């Protein structure tokens, strides 16, 4: 055995861990090698010094403090087993409650779609108010489309919806070739399929999008040109953007403004209006003349509840001379016999005849 082999086994030799044969070999080498013997003596000193380090007692009450902390602060084994179960249950319950709340919120957000599929599409795609348009300005289609084109599309759809008996549904499908129109028209068509199951659509609600400005108690808040504040037709300026955008009115009036006259005369004439109103239609049909193009000054639109049609006509007659009254489409002369129905009335106002 050389010195290297002996020194690598010195720790085991000093610990008595070598087998007898190796132990004897190391012992023989140490007897013969003073260098390795000095190394062994040095290691033995270190072992002895560590082993002779005096034991140090832990602080008094160490075990009690450990037990106190273990029992007071730390949960017992049983608690450690049960605690995760008890803790997981509230988490699962909380998750279930959270899911339920989210579901209710989502349902509430989507319920208008389910309850009244027409409402959101009308308020957004067809006739949104100014605020709604602003709020929905992020819609790519709406943001990209020019306003006139968009308004014209809205009016076409409004026209289709306002005249459910017209073949506008299939027509709208045909004209939905453009990709931008397709979704909107398809939405409107899909909603129109529900029409038989729905209450009659009120024209002004479809066409105006300004329902919120009309108080229920006083529906006639429009028409500054007339004494009775009938609701002026919605989107009148927009309807005049293009002939194609003009909706089909239920009734078309051709009236002629009277020349300026003293107020008293006007009032007396207005008083006579009621008496004239009864036979106005026949009278006008005989008296009226086809207005000359250059005499047409403006076209006004009014939305009038059917039951107030006669009142509207009287007030109209008080303000202007009714040249003609022409029900359009499937409308009959008995317009006032259509409860719960708003009439879209077109009034062509002609300039006074020159005397």
């Amino acid at each position: 055995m050389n010195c290297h082999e002996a020194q690598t086994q010195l720790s085991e030799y000093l610990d008595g861990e070598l087998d007898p044969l190796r132990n004897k070999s190391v012992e023989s080498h140490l007897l013969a090698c003073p260098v390795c013997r000095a190394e062994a003596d040095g290691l033995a000193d270190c072992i002895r010094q560590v082993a002779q380090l005096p034991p140090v007692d832990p602080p008094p009450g160490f075990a009690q403090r450990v037990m106190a902390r273990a029992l007071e602060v730390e949960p017992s084994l049983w608690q450690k087993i049960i605690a995760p179960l008890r803790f997981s249950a509230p988490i699962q319950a909380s998750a279930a409650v959270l899911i339920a709340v989210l579901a209710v919120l989502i349902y509430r957000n989507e319920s208008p779609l389910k309850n009244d599929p027409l409402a959101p599409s009308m308020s957004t795609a067809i006739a949104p108010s100014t605020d709604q348009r602003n709020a929905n300005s992020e819609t790519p289609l709406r943001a990209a489309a020019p306003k006139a084109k968009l308004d014209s599309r809205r009016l076409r759809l409004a026209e289709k919806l306002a005249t459910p008996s017209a073949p506008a549904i299939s027509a709208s499908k045909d004209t939905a070739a453009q990709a931008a129109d397709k979704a909107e028209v398809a939405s409107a068509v899909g909603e129109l399929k529900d029409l038989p199951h729905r209450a009659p659509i009120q024209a002004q609600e479809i066409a105006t999008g300004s329902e919120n400005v009309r108080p229920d108690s006083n529906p006639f808040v429009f028409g500054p040109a007339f004494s009775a504040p009938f609701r002026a037709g919605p989107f009148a300026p927009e309807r005049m953007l293009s002939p194609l955008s003009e909706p089909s009115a239920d009734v078309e009036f051709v009236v002629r403004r009277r020349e300026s006259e003293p107020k008293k005369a006007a009032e007396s004439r207005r008083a006579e209006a009621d008496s004239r109103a009864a036979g106005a239609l026949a009278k006008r049909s005989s008296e009226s003349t086809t207005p000359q193009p250059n005499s047409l000054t403006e076209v006004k639109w009014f939305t009038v509840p059917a039951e107030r049609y006669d009142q509207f006509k009287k007030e109209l007659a008080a303000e202007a001379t009714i040249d003609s009254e022409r029900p359009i489409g499937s409308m009959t002369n008995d317009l006032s016999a259509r409860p719960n129905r708003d009439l879209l009335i077109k009034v062509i106002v002609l300039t006074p005849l020159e005397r």
Partner: protein
Amino acid sequence: MRDAECVRRLQRGETDAFETLVRRHEKRIFNLVYRMLGDYEEAAEVSQEVFLSAFRAVGQFRGDANFSTWLYRIALNHASTRRKTLGTRQHRLLAIDNAEPLSDPQPSPSDILEKKEIRERVQAALNQLDPEDAEVILLRDLQDVSYDEVARVLKIPVGTVKSRLHRARRALKSRLAPYFCAGRKAV
């Protein structure tokens, strides 16, 4: 009651069995931690954490090894972690001076001074060792743990224990040589 029985009772929720284990092992654990750290107060705190960790984890103790082996492992893990966070060793020597009891009932002043100096040097040398070397020396030479158990505590092969122990002792010897080797006969 043996450790295994205490552990079983503790695992059944009988916490008084834990007190038996604490009282049985507190001194050895405290001394091991104290020699690893060289600071009495730190040793007290870390030792308490060792037992609390054992109490928390006793459900995971499967009984494959002795409870003492398992407890040594926890103690060395805590002590090594704390040792890394501690700063200079200088203050620990002062703590050692104040903490260690004097075993000789009537030592001469020179003996007291000599033994005190020896203890300080040895503890300082231990503190300068790598934690791995200190662990194996303390387990074997201070706690008189067998090679096999050291291997189980440190989770290393017995051959590695032998080589590591030899390397650690030589390292300790080299650190103590300036103080002891020249006048070794006096020690």
